[in-house]
């Protein structure tokens, strides 16, 4: 299954649109995008994950990584995650590190 990520940043808001399956083989692609964004000090990192079909632990690690790199002042926002991802975030405690919303203006 393929994985794509589109990124853009303006007015201190970084937007990443994720599609496909995020596993150990594709997680480095996302990590690279996150690494590019972090030096621009966004106040919000918004991940559009509605069309993300699968997220393995490697993907969850990128969320932790992104949260840690963003620092305490910035928000990490997940837009419309699928139920399975929400459950996994709950079970592992990561739910407290992110903001989950149904929509966020593109």
């Amino acid at each position: 299954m393929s994985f794509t990520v589109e990124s853009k940043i303006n007015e201190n808001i970084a937007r990443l649109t994720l599609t496909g399956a995020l596993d150990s083989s594709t997680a480095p692609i996302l990590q690279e995008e996150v690494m590019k964004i972090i030096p621009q000090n966004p106040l919000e990192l918004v991940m559009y994950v509605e069309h993300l079909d699968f997220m393995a632990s490697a993907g969850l690690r990128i969320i932790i990584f992104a949260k840690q790199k963003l620092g305490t002042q910035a928000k990490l926002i997940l837009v419309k995650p699928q139920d399975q991802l929400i459950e996994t975030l709950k079970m592992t405690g990561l739910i407290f590190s992110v903001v989950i919303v149904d929509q966020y203006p593109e």
Partner: protein
Amino acid sequence: MNDADVRIDYYPTHELNGIKYRCGRVLPFGATMVPNGINFSIYSSSATSCTLVLFKKNADQAFVEIPFPKEFMIGNVYSMIVFDLDYENLEYGYKMSGPYDPASGHIFNPNKILSDPYAKAIGGRDTWLRAPNWDNIYPFRSRLVFEDFDWENDKPLETPIEDLVIYEMHVRSFTIHPSSQIKFKGTFSGIREKIPYLLDLGVNCVELMPIYEFDEYEHSKIDPATGEMLINYWGYSTLNFFAPKSGYAATGKYGMQVDELKNLIKELHKNNIEVLLDVVFNHTAEGDHRGPVISFKGIDNKTYYMLTPEGYYFNFSGTGNTLNCNHPVVRNMVLDCLRYWAAEYHIDGFRFDLASILGRAQDGSPLNNPPLLESLAHDPILAKCKLIAEAWDAGGLYQVGTFPCYGRWAEWNGKYRDALRRFLKGDSNMVGEMSQRMQGSPDMYSSRGATAGINFVTCHDGFTLYDLVSYNEKHNEANGENNQDGNNDNDSWNCGWEGETDNQDINRLRHKQIKNALSILFVSQGVPMILMGDEMGRTQNGNNNTYCHDNELNWLNWDLIKENEDIFNFAKHIISFRRSHPVLRNSQHFKNIDYMNTGYSDISFHGKQAWQADWSENSRLLAFMLDGGHAKNGFSVDNTVYVVLNMFWEPVIVELPKLASGKNWFISVNTDMQPPFDFYGVSHEVKVENQNSMIVGARSVVILIEK
């Protein structure tokens, strides 16, 4: 490789098939992430060479095998940093060469791939009872874990041990039954979903039966009588001491079991509930000379196991082998392990299975001053952890009351359990001993205080509380061992009929006996522990050794809350009563004097006549008064509490001690009464009509408070 991250000494010096590596660091043992690589470190006293074997996750064959060059070895430690590995997708093991001479204790096999004793996660049993590939050349694979969990401000709670109410539970059994009505049944997450229940019940500590990685398929077999598969359900057989059981995590299949467990602990702590682990350091899953070689046997058999002079395994655990705990190397591993769980998982304490083994020398003889127990007692990282011993082993060493404690260790008080059971069923000559037990066993722990003993009436081994009052004999046929397994000395009484009955009188008596047992337990000094489900009358159909059943014999049926509503309500009340009354939770023993000048001694004993206890052989009545002015050894003030335990089969009229002017006795508990009059909630106690005397029913407990 990102040059900015590279330490000056972290560059490859060797290469094999495109894999770059260099000499590693000897400490810490295990596999550790370092910039751009992983440091592997392992020791063996007798191996002649070692090879690191690397797999991609779940791959049939290794993608590389890297022999440790001689220059990578310091002392008996092999260490190596391998660069640019995808640690998310990595499994590793070792091959060890050395002598094969069983009589000398060496059984090296250079072709066997061995799991790392210091691995932090183990692959192979990722999902509970999912059939593995039995032809796997490396079935229990070492994996790495991330230590990036966000604990926020969490730390171990350090609740004073005398204030604990311990709830012994099995992770899977607690929520796997459909009646639990939660989403992730049988998992760490499942416990998290049930935290509101634990709070409602009133316990403030859970003791988890083994959660170190184990193989549920170990010794599995089909029961010819039922066709059911019998498995290693309880998990008292460790594969690895550092890895949590993946099959207990709903996210285990994603490799997130560490995070899920840590999240559970964090949430329990947020709700002021401590977490104790039942740890099994007395043996491993490798069995005796017929058992599999998984890790320790192949790495350093003679170091890790107690061996007979002929090279066979000592079997003080009753399970095939005995970990050589007082060998300095093994001792350090145990210490490293407990430090890891205390520091990385914020565990509040440990209960050591068959802990007397930890006090045996390498030849099996009991040590006067066991270095492992002393090390654990004085370790700075474990300094605030509860250390609780099951102070006996399967080799006949019984140390309840005499376990080497170093001012730190507490014990499961097996003598408390036995005395309570015999007193409960009306045995003669028990009043004297019961008075000692409910005082925190000062006869056993004179210098160790009241909290040296963990009091219990039931635990996972043996009958449930409901079965204790429903069966005279064990009924273990379902275990497939011709009813030969399990303890024969249960001190149980079936109240007149063996097993289930429609006889209302018998069922009423059973419920009363359960309430009696809970009452005695929760007004006793010491630390009370109850077994999961006893608060709602869980039965195992008379089976007192359900170690092998993944079915309703072990699963908690939540519908019992409704079915045995009176027991459940009573259990909640008696727990609440204990937690509301500090006079029940002294850390030091009573002095039997009035050292606070209240006009009453801290404890006084009574009988049918106030101030006249009957200690004779045929007495079955014990009454005692705990003076509220001496609560918490005089550091707190509480209501005075009066307890009458009448285990005689007839009612008795009991004279009540006179109180100071203006004070009266109020009823909190009377187990002789039918619900809802068997108890009155805290602050809703009802005044005793006749303040001079009262009738205490046959086989009943009355608890009064002074207001």
